[in-house]
């Protein structure tokens, strides 16, 4: 028994006499202090976009305090929103993103349903393959895709390069794998008894999908939709490579290529354009933040 006695004379811990609640208060204050610092760092660019977008060219070139607007004006917004060219970019981006979202959902929901519920030959491999595809970056594929489009165009006589709608076929390679992956996860989390109950209630597999699975996995569906939309909206490399004429450009490429004319930067308009270009994802984010974040974190779990 005596061998088990604890050595009380060993290293002693300095007993702090500060109370728990005081410790917590200080931890909280420091947390807020650093959070403010990081928030400033994270928010400088968008805030600076807004500040600059409210300035006239004259005020920008006058080199006054860049962090303050002395003569706020909406002229940059008026000019861009009445410019056919900018509206064209916006239209192209919107059309592409909306169609890509629809195409993505049409492909990934049935596939995810099959992969989550119907075990068939190669289904596990396919699920893994889908995840791996998601890890293949656009910068690996833009050159062969460009050449492929050129070859197909020469072969069939159908113009594919420099057409915005071709992007509708390309973007799903970026959106479908991830959306399928997270939908597999959401579908797999639905208890098996629910489809069995539906089966006994007389539902066909299509009815099970549309009347049970889709409504129950709606949060996942919204997360996937948001993901598909933001990825399509932000995509820069493919449109930069595949489209060149001004009327075929999407927003990110349009703003970076047309508003920057040689060395003459019209910063007021560029920032306005960038802000307007960032607006749709930001608005979606503001209203559907929880779904956005759910989608973001869902990718790290097995489907």
């Amino acid at each position, binding site marked *: 028994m005596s061998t088990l006695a604890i050595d009380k004379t060993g290293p002693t*811990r300095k007993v702090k006499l500060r109370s728990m609640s005081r410790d917590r208060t200080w*931890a*909280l204050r420091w*947390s*807020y202090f*650093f*959070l403010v610092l*990081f*928030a400033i760092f*994270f*928010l*400088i*660019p*968008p805030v*600076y976009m807004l500040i600059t977008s409210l300035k006239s060219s004259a005020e920008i070139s006058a*080199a006054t305090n*860049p*962090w303050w607007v002395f003569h706020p004006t909406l002229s940059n917004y008026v000019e861009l929103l009445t410019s056919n060219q900018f509206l064209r970019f916006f239209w192209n981006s919107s059309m592409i993103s909306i169609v890509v979202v629809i195409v993505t959902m049409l492909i990934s929901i*049935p*596939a995810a349903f099959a992969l989550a519920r*119907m075990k*068939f030959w190669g289904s596990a491999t*396919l699920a*893994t393959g*889908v995840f791996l*595809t998601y*890890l293949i*970056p*656009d*910068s*690996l*594929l833009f*050159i062969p*895709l*460009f*050449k*492929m489009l050129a070859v197909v165009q020469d072969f069939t006589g159908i113009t594919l390069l420099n057409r915005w709608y071709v992007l509708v*076929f390309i973007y799903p390679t970026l959106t479908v794998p991830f959306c399928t992956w997270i939908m597999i996860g959401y579908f797999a989390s639905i208890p098996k008894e629910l489809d069995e109950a539906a089966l006994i209630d007389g539902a066909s597999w299509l009815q099970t999908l549309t009347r049970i699975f889709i409504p129950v996995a709606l949060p996942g569906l919204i997360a996937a939709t948001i993901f598909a939309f*933001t990825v399509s909206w932000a995509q*820069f490399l493919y449109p*930069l*490579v595949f489209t060149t004429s001004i009327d075929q450009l999407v927003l*990110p*490429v349009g*703003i*970076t290529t047309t508003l920057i004319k040689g060395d003459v*930067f019209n910063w007021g308009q560029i920032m306005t354009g*960038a*802000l307007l270009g*960032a607006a749709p*994802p*930001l608005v979606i*984010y503001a209203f559907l*933040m929880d779904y956005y*974040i759910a989608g*973001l*974190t869902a990718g*790290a*779990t*097995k489907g």
Partner: protein
Amino acid sequence: MADVVVEQGRLARAASPRKRTSLRNAMGRKSTVAFFLTLPLILLIALLVLYPAFYSVYLATLNKAMTKFVGLSNFTFLFKRETFWMVVRQSCIFAITAVVFKALIGFIVAHFVHNIPGKKQRKWRGMLLVPWVIPPAMSTLAWLWLFDPSYSAFNYTLSFFGIGPIPWLGDTFWARFSVILVNVWYGAPFFLIMYLAALKSVPDQLYEAAAIDGANWWQKIWHITLPMMRNIIAITTLFSLIVTFANFDIVRILTSGGPLDRTHLFATWAFQVGIQSSDIPLGACVSLFMVPILAVAAVFILRDVNKRGNEA
């Protein structure tokens, strides 16, 4: 009504001797349905991901005019160019430095957010994730303007402290610094969100037990937080490594690889060589050099994701 029921019964009875075959048919039907449900996905991946990937290998073995098979001479040509080795080095420095800082900042900020009361967390989290939400091409334009040689708002501010003017994009060191800074700014919120989710999944009892065992805050992080989050840290880091290594938007808009190719990454250099200089085979060749590191990272991610799946 009764007749119909009897009729059905007879049909069923008649069918029973052929049970095995009809069962096999049912199984076959299910597989067929599943196949058609996944067909669009398979086609998409096969035609627009797998095929181009292999096509890229083929393209890399052609001469510039794409008329002749030249074997590996594109690769040997690259090996002899100093710019290529510079791009390799820069890509590695860029990816590793950026990911390390993203991970660190994400980890630290996640703790700060986790510290504050639950109701306010939502607001702060919402604010801190904004960089990730803005399309990188758009936000990089804002950085470009912030780094402007003559009107830089940073230099304006720093001048009050007697610093600068700093050539943000004009000098090799500062250009690399700026490119990494913007990437860290863009990517840190992603780490923040992943870590925050992981932090919330650590049961409070563990910390309470550790506090009773006499652990200080550092020991709690080292012995509880980090081991519990190990898997998610690994997945997030590897994933970010892939995305950062293959980054295009930020460098393209900020520096276009300049000054003197000192900030080129594989993606931007491949774009310059393959699209702008129209040497498609050489461009394909450059981008193919990303494959080994991407493949290694992908294998490890898959392992960790599967592990997570098994834990759940």
